[in-house]
């Protein structure tokens, strides 16, 4: 297990920040919103609350976990009478990015992993950043996942899900920039597709990026 005290949601939030500055990484349009939506679903799946297949997501135990990061979303899923595919719920939860991300950031600060830094420009808050306190959590995740990508070991289910989420929202491009990882792109792709939620996050992100590119092209041709 990777950092068992952290939820996948917290890990994705942590890894979506720049190592040095604590600023949000530059990710493709909608990537982080889908990544965080997927992380919430994956956390609920690992907790035995939901199950998924290529057709639908079902709630198998609606009892609250006692985790304020996840319980509102479990409640939302449990309140729906009809079954919907994972892509539907990614779409719904991706619109809640701020409500998912901010409590996770707050908890990472409370745990002493991140600190809040407000840069003031002309005496007003101009830029909020979340640098790591010592960076060892992020280093540990990167080292463990990097070893999996560069080696041939099997991942455990949690590691497979995390790799799927990070690939799906394209954080892996930032955390594995070295050439040896580019040479292992097939291995990374194999690991990333082991879990359904990661595959769906990748599909949703690609669709959003394509839609944006298409809208830009259309706008350019009508200028």
């Amino acid at each position, binding site marked *: 297990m990777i950092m068992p005290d952290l939820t996948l949601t917290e890990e994705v939030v942590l890894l979506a920040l720049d190592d040095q500055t604590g600023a949000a990484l530059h990710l493709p349009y909608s990537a982080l919103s889908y990544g965080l939506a997927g992380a919430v679903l994956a956390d609920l799946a690992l907790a035995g609350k939901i*199950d998924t*297949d290529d057709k639908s997501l079902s709630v198998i135990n609606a009892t609250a976990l006692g985790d304020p990061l996840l319980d509102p979303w479990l409640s939302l899923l449990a309140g729906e009478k009809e079954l919907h595919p994972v892509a539907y719920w990614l779409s719904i939860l991706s619109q809640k990015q701020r409500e998912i991300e901010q409590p996770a950031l707050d908890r990472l600060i409370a745990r002493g992993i991140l600190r809040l830094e407000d840069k003031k420009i002309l005496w007003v808050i101009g830029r909020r950043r979340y640098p790591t306190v010592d960076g060892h959590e992020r280093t540990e995740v990167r080292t463990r996942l990097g070893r999996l990508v560069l080696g041939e070991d099997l991942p*455990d289910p949690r590691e497979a899900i995390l790799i799927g989420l990070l690939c799906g929202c394209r954080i892996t491009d930032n955390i594995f920039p070295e050439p040896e990882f580019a040479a292992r792109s097939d291995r990374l792709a*194999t690991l990333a597709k*082991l*879990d359904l939620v990661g595959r769906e996050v990748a599909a949703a992100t690609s669709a959003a990026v394509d839609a944006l590119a298409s809208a830009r092209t259309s706008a350019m041709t009508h200028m």
Partner: protein
Amino acid sequence: MEIRESSANEVPLLILTGRLDGRTAPILEDKISSLLATGINHLVFDCSGVDYASSAGLRVFLSTAKKLATAKGRCGFAALAPNLREIFEVSGFLQVLEIHPSVADATIS
């Protein structure tokens, strides 16, 4: 899901029949934990009767294979039913797990 315990060529065998989903996966997980606790280092699943596996079911398979690999053991998946083979293909499990056409192959190779 029905889970029958057997052996072939002295290799522990779990014969699975039915649906492996979020409700039945914990039952299989408990069964596997009991088996692993006896110190076995080779386990084969007869998957000829598994007509469905959800994400929860797939995680049990991956977790078991990982535990045995970590212990320098082996975990084989034999005689995949067509639906399960398709699920394994889509999820890349065919590439990372030890797959065999039959229980006999899985227990002698």
